[in-house]
């Protein structure tokens, strides 16, 4: 089975307020899927419905082929959940917190101990095993949260804003953990509004707005859809002239050309056209000193998209 999470016309209403509006989401096995969107866009509600912690108003969900509202125990046994604010019993040690979860999952003691050891190793907390959680930093708590999820050896992990509030080093470590999990074949669904981090780990992203998923795809695809261009090429040449810029504008697939300063020209394009740019520059009599390209950043896509949405609404 390649589709592990499927929602059909999933809707959740709180009174008149529509938190999630006819959501159709498909997450494939083994991918890292990012839910993006401003606060209140319905990301957390969607996650809670997938876990069976909130009942949908209408529509259907299948997680690994099970319905979370009717078979919540099976779903929760195979899905790990890291809430946006992960809390532990502060007065208990890391081990005591984990053994409680293991017992709730019905694991026998020896098996639980084995899994706890290996989980703590994976998140690099072995030496903190018998320390009270009250002494943990936010990053350590977050990693302990992952250890807790790993105890039940899940097929899917859902994380709500996993890197929020972490320092850069903590966030980097955490993203590394996500990559390790992905390499083990675990499907990961994460929500975030820290875009460059999403871009760093996600295979596909879905853009949420007012309970609807407006766009889905890889970051490059979204870039093409929203900005009409996904690549930005920087040409370094000592003698920028209007003629060269005109010539570059004639290149097919070049969307926007402008001189950043006297020595750099920026070309935005829908595909990788470095070769054509170089050829055109030289044909137009320019000297090529350097040529570099960067992919579109998710930040820009996001900002541009929501700017447009707000503009249309106004």
């Amino acid at each position, binding site marked *: 089975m390649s589709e592990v999470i499927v929602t059909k016309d999933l809707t959740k209403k709180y009174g008149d307020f529509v938190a999630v509006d006819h959501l159709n989401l498909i997450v494939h096995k083994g991918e890292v899927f990012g839910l993006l969107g401003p606060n209140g866009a319905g990301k*957390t*509600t969607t996650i*809670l419905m997938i*876990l069976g*912690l*909130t009942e949908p108003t209408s529509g259907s969900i299948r997680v690994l082929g099970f319905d979370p509202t*009717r*078979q*919540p*125990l*099976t779903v*929760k*046994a195979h*899905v*790990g*959940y890291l*809430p946006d*604010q*992960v*809390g*532990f*019993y*502060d007065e208990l040690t890391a081990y005591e917190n984990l053994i*409680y*979860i293991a*017992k*709730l*999952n*019905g694991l026998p003691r020896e098996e639980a101990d084995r899994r706890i050891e290996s989980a703590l190793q994976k998140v690099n907390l072995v030496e903190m095993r018998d320390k009270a959680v009250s002494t943990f930093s936010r990053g350590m708590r977050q990693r302990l*949260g992952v250890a*807790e999820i790993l105890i*039940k050896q899940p097929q899917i992990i859902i994380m709500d804003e996993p890197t929020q509030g972490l320092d850069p080093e903590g966030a980097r470590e955490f993203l590394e953990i996500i990559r390790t999990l992905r390499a083990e074949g675990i499907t990961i669904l994460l929500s975030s509004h820290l875009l460059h981090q999403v871009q760093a780990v996600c295979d596909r992203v879905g853009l949420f707005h007012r309970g609807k998923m407006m766009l889905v795809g890889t970051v490059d695809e979204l870039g093409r859809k929203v900005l009409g261009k996904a690549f930005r090429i920087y040409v370094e040449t000592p003698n920028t002239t209007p003629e060269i810029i005109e010539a570059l504008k004639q290149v097919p697939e070049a969307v926007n050309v402008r001189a950043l300063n006297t020595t750099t020209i920026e070309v935005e394009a829908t595909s990788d056209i470095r070769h054509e740019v170089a050829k055109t520059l030289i044909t137009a009599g320019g000297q090529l000193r350097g040529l570099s390209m960067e992919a579109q950043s998710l930040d820009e896509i996001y900002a541009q998209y929501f700017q447009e949405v707000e503009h249309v609404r106004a």
Partner: protein
Amino acid sequence: MSALERAEIQRLREGSPWTGLWAVVAKEMADHLTSARMRILELLILLTAGGTVYVAMQQIRASIGSDRFIYLKLFTLSQDPLPSLIGFLGFLVPLIAIALGFDAVNGEFNRKTLSRILAQPIYRDALLSGKFLAGLFTLALVFSAIWLLIFGMGLIGLGVAPNSEEVGRLLWFLLATIFYGGIWLVLAQMFSVVFRQPATAALAAIATWLFFTVFWNILASLLAQSLRPIQYGFLQEALAQAELELALTRISPNTLYAEIAIALLNPTVRSLGFVLPFQLEGAILGTPLPLHQSVLLIWPHLTGLIAATILLFALAYVLFQRQEIRA
């Protein structure tokens, strides 16, 4: 999908609601028994039990040999300024029970552990029932320990072993005390579902207790006077009014518990209501009732306490099941 089909499907729930119950009970009990809160309460109850029983023993020694039920006297005798042990229990039991329950659910919520726990393969039922059972077991454990301690003090201090009648009565009284605690425990837990702040929940539970302790009797008497006024001064009118007042005061768990204590610990008490002189014809006043007769006397009270506990638990359960777990 038709409404009927939907209802059919919703009735079928996968797995057992008891999954994980004992894990919750074990964890919660361990928390209760090691918490600083519990230590303070244990110290408090130990002091009062020790103090009142010591005072009672002083009095019993002066009149030893004249009473068949000296162990019961350990609970009921008082000497100014100290009230008797049952007097203390009347407010210590609610205090301990409320202390065990007021942050049961909102505490999890505030520590952000609730969503993490509920994401485990258990139903919400297990969490709430587990917390209630853990509280009730803790109460049972603490009170049983106190009871045994009092027996021990009695053995050493009085040098007389309790007779089976006394042991039986005190065991029934222990059961009543645990369920009296159960009511306040489940009330506090219900408030912990309703209020997000543990302090608010604690205050609400204490306010309820205060209401029943202080104001309910006054209110019951006012209500009885206005609903069954004495217009012509007949005996029936006075009786009707007094009976209504008694019925109203018995809504309060405090009254129920106090009456249970009276009937169980004073074997000579033959009725908890009104007795007219002609009803006492042929009775030998001052002779004790056998245990089973006293138990019959408090049976409605005991079942009332247990029923109220179950009703409040059901209410807390419904509220908790419907609660959104996100902030």
